[in-house]
């Protein structure tokens, strides 16, 4: 496109200047050629300006898209830094609480050692972190139990995935999603259990 633009501009220049200097104004057909060349040069210049305007708009659009992408990435990085900062504060807080918590030794028992490794706090920290970040329940309001014998929809699949991410057990998930409880040889429960295990294996 840029080559076309430069070609149009060059052509306009050449068609403007050269016939006026190369041809004789006194000869009638020379004059006609000069007039035609001037008109052609005018057309080339107008077309070149339109093309340049179109290219300038495309350039501005691509620059705006790039700036938007960069700002999105920066926003994500800032968010992840904020979350890791929050996690670090929580870790420090829990560690300090564990150190300052009063522990009364029982009769004949030895007082617990306060030099616990921070790694022992990790399960409690994980639970508190998950609890603090779990804002929405996995089962939406007004949930209607689907039939496990028919192929499940993407909505039901998403709800089961949400339950798995919340750390719910199989029975709890099946009871919440399908409204079925374990007991006896219930074919519906077996079908629901198959869906649960399939989705769990897909999640890895």
């Amino acid at each position, binding site marked *: 496109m840029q080559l076309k*633009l430069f070609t149009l*501009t060059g052509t306009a220049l050449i068609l403007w200047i050269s016939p006026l200097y190369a041809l004789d104004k006194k000869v009638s057909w020379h004059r006609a050629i000069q007039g035609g060349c001037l008109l052609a040069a005018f057309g080339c210049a107008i077309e070149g300006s339109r093309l340049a305007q179109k290219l300038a708009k495309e350039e501005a659009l691509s620059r705006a898209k790039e700036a938007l992408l960069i700002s999105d990435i920066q926003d994500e990085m800032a968010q992840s830094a904020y979350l890791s900062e929050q996690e670090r504060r929580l870790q420090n807080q829990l560690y300090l609480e564990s150190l300052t918590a009063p522990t009364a030794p029982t009769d004949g028992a030895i007082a617990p050692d306060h030099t616990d490794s921070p790694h022992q706090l990790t399960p409690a920290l994980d639970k508190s972190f998950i609890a603090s970040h779990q804002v929405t329940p996995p089962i939406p309001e007004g949930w209607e139990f689907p039939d496990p014998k028919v192929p499940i929809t993407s909505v039901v699949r998403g709800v089961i995935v949400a339950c798995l991410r919340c750390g719910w057990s199989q029975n709890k998930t099946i009871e919440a999603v399908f409204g079925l409880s374990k007991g006896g040889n219930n074919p519906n429960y077996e079908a629901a259990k198959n869906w649960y295990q399939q989705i769990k294996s897909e999640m890895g």
Partner: protein
Amino acid sequence: MKAMHLLNLFLSGCIASSFLGWVAMLSPTAMRIVSAILCTALVGWGLCWLLDDTLTSRLSVNHLQLQAFLIASLAMFLVGLGVILCS
């Protein structure tokens, strides 16, 4: 690209001015017609300088843009006319 766009617009103005000069050279009647057109354009150009406040509010441009346009149009006219007269 914006510069190329403005350059091509300037070039088209110069070519249009040369074309007017070429038309004027065809016959004495054409010369008179083109002279009348040019005189009208010159008067209009002068009025634009005097009525710049009204024009800027009507056309939603600022003073600098209007002045740049007027100066560029004069330059276009002079360049185009100069090329045709010198050829």
